[in-house]
């Protein structure tokens, strides 16, 4: 390799390095006090493990194990009206006859949260108010707790939820207290 080629190669290498820095600078970095390396990995950890969103939002099979084929798609529509049984079938009983059903949080556009933007999702977590302006009722979904969540954690959850399979399932409508 002659001197000229070395020069060309080093010039190219420096350019690549600068370009790489540029890409990194535009990508938001995940806070350093987390073990996970990316927002999606952080979201997976929160949804499937630490926050256990799957525990309520994924239906369970006959052995009380979460049914992976219905991952995060909420109480199946076919159980509407069923009043006895586990909460993944009959919903959670609330005060004065109320009943709350875990929602479909897959990216399905019609029955899930496919049309929610990241900011709408983060705002719902912060304020307990849905994108359509309706305030969430008191329910097993602990909005008073999730309102304390760091914005980055809510973003991580959203970004992970965008990666799961969209499942069409219209969850039975909540029954409000009498």
């Amino acid at each position, binding site marked *: 390799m002659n001197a000229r080629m070395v020069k060309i190669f080093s010039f190219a290498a420096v350019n690549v390095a600068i370009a790489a820095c540029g890409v990194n600078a535009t990508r938001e970095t995940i806070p350093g006090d987390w*073990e996970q390396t990316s927002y999606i990995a952080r979201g997976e*950890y*929160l949804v*499937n*493990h*630490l*926050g*256990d969103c*799957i*525990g309520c939002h994924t239906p369970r099979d*006959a*052995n*009380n*194990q979460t049914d992976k084929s219905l991952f995060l798609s909420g109480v199946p529509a076919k159980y509407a009206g069923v009043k006895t*049984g*586990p*909460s993944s079938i009959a919903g*959670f*009983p*609330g*005060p004065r006859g*109320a009943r709350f059903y875990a929602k479909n949080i897959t990216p399905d556009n019609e029955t899930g949260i496919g049309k929610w933007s990241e900011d709408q999702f983060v705002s719902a977590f912060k304020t307990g108010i849905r994108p359509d302006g309706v305030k969430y*009722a*008191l*329910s*097993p979904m*602990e909005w*008073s*707790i*999730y309102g*304390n*969540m*760091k914005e980055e*954690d809510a973003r991580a959850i959203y970004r992970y939820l965008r990666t799961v399979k969209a499942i069409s399932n219209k969850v039975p409508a909540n029954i409000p*207290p009498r």
Partner: protein
Amino acid sequence: MAHQLLWLVAIAGIFLPLKPARAQTDAELIARGRYIATAIQGCGCHTREKPDGGKDEAWHYAGAPNPPPPAGPPANSGWTTPRWKRIYARNITPDRETGIGNWTEAQFIRALRAGITPDGRVLDPQMPWDAFQKITDRDLKSLWAYLKTIKPIKNKAPDGVPADAK
């Protein structure tokens, strides 16, 4: 020889920054545990509800009432699972007789990861220890450190009723 030394220094320079971070102080663990418990994993099943459906903070983390009401939200009246006709959330306050005040950190981590209590009982999957298996050591230690700081409350949660009970 000088070359080899230089290499050694260079390689050491690469690896030194990767040495494990210093151990966290108790205050840092407690703060992280508090964040987890008050923002992410509320452990809400362990706090009974008031008649309006809100959490009854006077009984924060003290488990289901004893005796339990026959019907109502599961945090009060228990869950039904394939193994249990009724199963009730336990007292996870640091009360020594009725809570987890006598547990060690290692016992706590075993219960959350393997679903086995210090006295050898296997926890029903209603307590999602299968999902908790992959919680990091740091987060479990943090949660434990935080739980030790909350107010101990005396409440012996009701015993579960097995599915085959008459």
